[in-house]
């Protein structure tokens, strides 16, 4: 079981890691501890490995800053499930090895703090309140994720997965 952290629409990357806490400002070993420091104080200390972020439309909009996703990765976030994703944030998630999965219903049936189970193969996110359908990821993205990210995949295979 994982805890769900629920956010709304248009969550931007500046709320994930404000620019003033960029790695080059506070150090590679510290920036992730500022994840959601303004938007959700306490998140970085309370989040557990495998926890799932649940959001609405246009999740991860705003700056292309990859360190927002890197912070989630360092904190062990297991997946992000949202109605829709901003383009660059989606790529950054797949590239760094965090499943970014679309679901029209998840944000409707999950409340912040719920214990949830994500079963990507079955295409569902379950909580005590019900079950939300999640959209399967393209096999291409699944292969990258199973390697741990695009850097690991390409280092191992010398190329992208086949499309």
């Amino acid at each position, binding site marked *: 079981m994982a805890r769900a952290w629920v956010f709304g629409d248009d969550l931007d990357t500046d709320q994930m890691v404000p620019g003033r806490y960029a790695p080059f400002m506070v150090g590679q070993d510290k920036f992730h501890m500022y994840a959601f420091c303004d938007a959700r104080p306490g998140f970085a200390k309370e989040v557990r490995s495998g926890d799932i972020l649940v959001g609405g439309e246009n999740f991860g*909009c705003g700056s*292309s800053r990859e360190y927002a996703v890197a912070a989630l990765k360092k904190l062990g976030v297991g997946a992000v499930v949202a109605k829709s994703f901003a383009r660059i944030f989606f790529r950054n998630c797949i590239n*760094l090895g965090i499943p970014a999965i679309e679901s029209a219903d998840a944000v409707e049936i999950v409340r912040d703090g719920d214990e949830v189970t994500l079963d990507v193969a079955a295409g569902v996110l379950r909580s005590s309140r019900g079950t939300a359908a999640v959209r399967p990821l393209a096999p291409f993205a699944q292969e990258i994720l199973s390697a741990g990210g*695009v850097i690991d995949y390409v280092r191992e295979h010398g190329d992208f997965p086949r499309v």
Partner: protein
Amino acid sequence: MTTTEGLRPPRTPQTIAEVILSRVSGRDVRAGDLVIVPVSRVMVHDSVIDAVMAGLRDLGRERVWDTSKVCVFVDHAAPAPTPVVADSHRVLREWVREQAIPTFYDAGEGVCHQIMVEEGYCEPGTVIVGSDSHSNSYGAVGAFGAGMGATDVAVALALGRTWLRVPGSIRVDFIGRLRKGVTMKDAIMRVVREIGTDGARYACVEFHGVGDLPQGDRITLAGMTTEMGAKAGIVVGTPEAPAWLRPDPDARYLREVTIDLTTLEPQIAVPPRVDQVVDVSAAVGQPVDIVFLGSCTNGRLVDMQQAANVLRGRRVAPHVRLEVVPSSRRQFELAMQDGTLQALSAAGAVIGSSGCGPCLGRTGGVLAAQEICLSTANRNYKGRMGSPDASIYIGSPYVAAVAALTGVIDDPRPYLEATDEEFDALVARRRGERPERGAASSRSGDRSRELVMASARSGPVAEIDD
């Protein structure tokens, strides 16, 4: 599976994005298909170089795939404003030397996007990956330019390829002709007002009816598609494009938008969203403290000429500053040669070295808390140009020049038609009406709240910094 020519289903029509991605991927692809495509260039700039180098190191790649296809720029925080940034630039220069990358533009040469287009690095009909979100600008000449994060850029540098999902397209048709004092900046702001900051997410915005415009106007259009969440923005029918590079006439679009240029008013984006756009008439009298003329959106010779036409022989308003940053050395020198910069300097402008300038708040002319800026750039998010408590309005170079001259936002069109006496009377009237904005004036006179209500859209604050 094999198919004979006679059995193949009729080919469905393609958008320009589908035409380009089919050609470079060697498959007949449509929106939604995943493709791996060769890139004709990779653009890298100073503010991401550390992460890009780390990505290459983690990939175990010592060399980029083709040094002749990599373009490197120092423009985002240039010249270096702090020792930390200076050190990052030093590391970047060493990397460029080690890799023997010939195409390197150091501080002062200009904004990456301006140089990429004007120096001919953008081949029409090809895919270009850039480390900056405004890499959509390359659609000005018919290239599929897409901004990506540092890891994507590192992989593209290693492999010379990238992966993309073929985007659906939004078709924008411009009809009619712009009236005097109205620009393509106003036209694209009108489009952003219509589509919103996420209305073109994952999509390509395809522009029709403007292929014959000057290249600079096309950069303004293509670059600002980023502000609608677009993956790419491509102008159809440009002089640079080969004949095959055009969409099929009956291609399918996610949405079609038509903008009549003839009836268009100058447009103003109200802080803190680019899609909170009003006609200038709604914002007349809004005071400003500082005016920024520059950026990849509006830092070219013609933009500076438009401002100089208003400001020549006059001085900016008391207590108002004007900062002009040409978008490239070429544009800088053209504006020196024809006297444009002389006129702007004589009017009281600070002339900055070519580059991104204060657009992203990292160097030169950043904003203090409570200050109100009128910027010709492309983003007005909270904190974009300095203090998170500053306000940024966005407008055209004409609007910028009039704001510098009067200290308030006003419709530039009457000034362009006025006799000298009428002009002076307009300026005197607006200066007289300008609310007092002393050092402790807080937000006195800032009408942004009221204007947000007046704009077509409103919503939560978003911040973007590169």
